[in-house]
């Protein structure tokens, strides 16, 4: 999903403010929310479903609030969607509006061929496939169609595109692919960007 969460290279944000002696949590509700996140698997919810629930937030809400409020919104959305709690009950208990994320897209997955064996090796030139699932995907829009070089082959992990949407666990290798930043953004200087990309999102460069 080319959502608001895909922030790489979006311009207009300001300075990065480092807080001195920052606490792990700034309020008890943040710690409680994080504890609930760690319990999600008890409700049959996996990390990819969780990540996507946050991505599905109303874009204005996503940008306006703190990380743990996004986390709270995603968790609450998933538990309401699962029927574990009801939105009406949550709003009654909270005494106010309780915003949730938007629904999953009608057709969230772009079918791809499973790649259980690694197709690429260190030094290979690859091209990021020109696909854009309406649901969850971990390939940023900025590298779509771009050419990069494999620096490292990571172990197999489940392809999030399918596990975020009720699909079977589909382990595939991912690759640390290095791109010239100037190939992603015309004004970038001489640095490189390394993106970790699952096998089925790549194709060999001709």
């Amino acid at each position, binding site marked *: 999903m080319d959502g608001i969460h895909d*922030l790489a290279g979006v311009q207009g944000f300001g300075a990065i403010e480092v807080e001195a002696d920052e606490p792990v949590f700034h309020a008890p509700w943040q710690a409680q929310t994080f504890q609930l996140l760690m319990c999600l698997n*008890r409700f049959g919810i996996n990390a990819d479903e969780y990540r996507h629930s946050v991505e599905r937030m109303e874009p204005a809400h996503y940008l306006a609030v703190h990380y743990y409020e996004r986390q709270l919104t995603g968790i609450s959305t998933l538990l309401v969607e699962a029927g574990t709690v009801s939105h009406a009950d*949550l709003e009654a208990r909270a005494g106010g509006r309780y915003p949730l994320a938007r629904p999953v897209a009608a057709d969230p997955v772009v079918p791809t061929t499973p790649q259980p064996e690694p197709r690429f090796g260190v030094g290979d030139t690859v091209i990021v496939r020109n696909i854009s699932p309406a649901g969850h995907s971990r390939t940023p829009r900025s590298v779509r169609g771009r050419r990069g070089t494999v620096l490292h082959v990571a172990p197999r992990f489940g392809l999030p595109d399918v596990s975020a949407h009720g699909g079977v666990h589909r382990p595939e290798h*991912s690759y*640390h692919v290095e791109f010239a930043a100037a190939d*992603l953004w015309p004004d970038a200087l001489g640095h490189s960007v390394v993106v*970790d990309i699952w096998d089925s999102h790549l194709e060999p460069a001709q």
Partner: protein
Amino acid sequence: MTATASPAARTTALLGALADKDLLDPAMLGQIEAMVESWRPQNGAHVVARAWTDPAYRARLVADGTAACAELGYGGPQGEYIVVLENTPTLHNVVVCTLCSCTPWPIMGLPRDWYKSPAYRSRITREPQAVLREMGLDLPADVKLRVWDTTAETRYMVLPMRPAGTEAYSEAELAALVTYETMVGVALPTV
């Protein structure tokens, strides 16, 4: 139009709804709380200081970050596959998670607010030179800069260079130089 409830009120509401259905396990919540307390950037600092003082450990750390961290007792959720990025006189590494805020919890702790901010997430891949300068890090022009975006299951930690003038430091003294920011790559350890 009803106002939006505060995040605190919403969290209390959700916890209450789950508790009323007996879906919360207080023992488990307590375990999680303890686990979170064990995730501290001091763990990563310990790893870095060991790598600075023990060349064999450093080699193991760079070859297999997950196993080398486990040697020192660090592992767990979001530490399943740790890759350590060595800074050198000609290469500087910086880590980000542009899509959310992934980071190796067991060795870095939960991420800081600045790491999770849209400003950092949006800017560091496109204009790291400007961002690092703003954050006080002026790299020599001939140092190659690599920005690592945490977009899959690898969790990165930067291994900074040992600062000059620390030849006589103990491992504990060295670890005290290693801040969260130095392991993300937006600062350098200084004496």
